């Protein structure tokens, strides 16, 4: 029998209320994703497609402000599947009048107490996260070593400072920081961007989490450092067999590291399946958005004329006024006469076109 997945997200919806627009900004709008033990799932999409918000929802970090989360996030700890979002909906009251949302009131204290109760044993220990901007995610007032030690003392049964310190040095070494004992006492400003990123990874891994969420781990660093971070993640994956949810808009990184891919657009998953089916350049039946996204990468195969790229015209979906039909309809170049009406008026389902490969497009379903 196949094991239950480590993480199973079912119909996750994360909305934010905009008072001026009297409507919800539907950042994540019905996401279904699951990650098996030892698997790396890549999540790609343009900015604003809901990748990071999905991750933050899983981590229980959407607390403050008028965020509304519904759905189920099943996470397996010690063999027991647990819903990380249980009862959260009870703390939110939405007042609707004439189809307009008049007010959203949220029992922030209750919400956070509940979230804290559920998450405090899991966040950092079971699910660790690497954030987008390592320099601003590390505390500038304490040394890198102290920050890692703190995480270790908090989440693992270490006996004393000394042992924790040894663990921290071990992990700094593991992520290939030169002279880890020296770097232990460095403040974040004394480290380069790439080193900060590696220190972040060390901190995340030091408590040996069962799931690692890496949010844009290679964005904003130089190409040379980028390839090294990717190398490191690949090595950790093969060495430790760690389960990862890798969020990036850099498709080359995703295609190299992940086993399966979820392509997100406008808060939903539009294509989901094994990496080799989705990101291979020659695979014929693909969602038009994935095709366009792959075509806009400046690589040898895509350049037809010097200096030009194949752009996706238009902008990322406005997640307040979500159209009735397919979310990609306005930018899609594959709409033909026969299905135009369907594309415009009805949203397609996520349909399987081959085992494990599902996509949301009228071209492949009826």
């Amino acid at each position, binding site marked *: 029998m196949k094991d239950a997945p480590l993480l199973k997200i079912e119909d996750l919806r994360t909305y934010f209320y905009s008072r001026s627009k009297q409507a919800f900004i539907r950042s994540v709008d019905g996401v279904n994703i699951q990650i098996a033990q030892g698997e790396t799932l890549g999540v790609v999409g*343009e*900015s*604003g497609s809901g990748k990071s918000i999905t991750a933050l929802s899983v981590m229980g970090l959407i607390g403050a402000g008028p965020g509304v989360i519904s759905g189920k996030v099943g996470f397996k700890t010690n063999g027991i599947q647990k819903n990380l979002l249980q009862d959260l909906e009870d703390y939110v009251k939405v007042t609707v009048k004439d189809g307009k949302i008049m007010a959203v009131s949220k029992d922030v204290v209750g919400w956070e107490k509940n979230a804290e109760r559920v998450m405090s044993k899991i966040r950092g220990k079971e699910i660790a996260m690497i954030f987008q901007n390592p320099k601003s995610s590390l505390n500038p007032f304490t040394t890198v070593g102290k920050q890692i030690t703190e995480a270790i003392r908090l989440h693992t049964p270490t006996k004393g400072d000394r042992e924790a310190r040894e663990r921290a040095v071990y992990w700094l070494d593991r992520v*290939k920081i*030169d002279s880890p004992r020296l770097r232990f006492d460095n403040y974040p400003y004394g480290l*380069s*961007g*790439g*080193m900060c990123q590696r220190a972040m990874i060390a901190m995340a891994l030091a408590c040996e989490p069962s799931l690692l969420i890496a949010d844009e781990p290679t964005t*904003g660093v*130089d*190409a*040379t*450092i*980028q*390839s*090294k971070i*990717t*190398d490191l993640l*690949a*090595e950790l994956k*093969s060495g430790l067999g760690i389960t990862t949810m890798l969020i990036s*808009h*850099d*498709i*080359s*990184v995703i*295609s*190299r*590291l992940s086993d399966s891919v979820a392509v997100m657009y406008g808060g939903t998953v539009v294509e989901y399946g094994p990496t080799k089916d989705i990101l291979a350049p020659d695979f014929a039946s693909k969602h038009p958005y994935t095709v*366009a*996204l792959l075509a*806009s*990468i*400046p*690589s040898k195969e895509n*350049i037809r004329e*010097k*200096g*030009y*790229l*194949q*752009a*996706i*015209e238009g*902008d*990322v979906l406005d997640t307040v006024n979500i159209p009735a039909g397919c979310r990609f309809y306005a930018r899609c170049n594959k709409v033909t006469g026969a299905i135009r009406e369907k594309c415009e008026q009805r949203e397609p389902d996520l349909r399987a076109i081959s085992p494990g490969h599902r996509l949301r497009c009228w071209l492949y379903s009826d």
Partner: protein
Amino acid sequence: MPKTILEVIDLKKHFFQRNGIFSPLKERERSIPAVDGVSFYLKENETMGLVGESGCGKTTIGRTILRLTPATSGKVLFDGRDILAMPPEELRQLRGQMQMIFQDLDAALNPKMRIREILKEAITVHHKVSDAEVDRRTAELLEQVNLKKSKLSNFPHELSGGEKRRVGVARVLSVGARFIVADEPTSALDVSIQAQVVNLLRDLQKQLGLSYLFISHDLRVVELISHKVAVMYLGKVVEMGLAGRIANAARHPYTHILWSSLVEKQSRESSVTPANPRTGRWGVFDFERPVAGCRFAPRCPVYESKGKPSECTDPATEPRLRDPGDGQYVACHFPL
């Protein structure tokens, strides 16, 4: 034969680090050579790509050429006239022709002005124009950068990344720029939007005959958009030549490492074998402890494999940028 629009001769920019208020009394301040003797030229209708890791002096070159930062020494000839030695009044008249697209448009666009006002300010800053003329120019600019008219009454924060970029380009065009320093114009944009911006820049070049100095650390984009590419390392140009040759037939070990570090070129299988020898080590360079001789030697695989030859580390024989005969300049004792 297109004429040369910009010529940079031995440009230097050293920053000085002062240690406390008494430091001028001490023997000497520490000087950090952010740009250390860079020469190149740019023709009309041409794009020169400038690549290198962060901190190598790319942006400083861009700013110094436009005299936004005073240079330490050297010459910058724009249409044959030295910008660095120009009296301010004369420079002001040239300003319209040479412009910069800044890296961070959230900081470069005034958050309290509407797009209409931002463009109006740019149009009227160098010339006195009537309101009707301003409207006409604004409409023309919007057309050129392919921006919707409805966005004029928006504030910058209401625009998406790509749209902000377009406003930045429109503003530069409004003053009649012929030479544009584009500093990381596509960083922090999604690939789809990046493609739009790259196409826009390319279209404008064709229509208006613009010249670009395209600063970026995204090698793929630079390779695509530039005619020539200069590779910088620690304030020096280490290799310069045609874009295709730099990308595919690099002579300098550093250029080779840069391009082979592109993730897409490595296969999935090779990812498991650690320490790919071509990608070098995790060196982080340090301006404060300059290396004698070739600056790249400590990270250089050729230096290592040749058994650390002494000419690489001898300060008297620091490699100079030279042309081995085919127009691809390289500063290395042992070009690949």
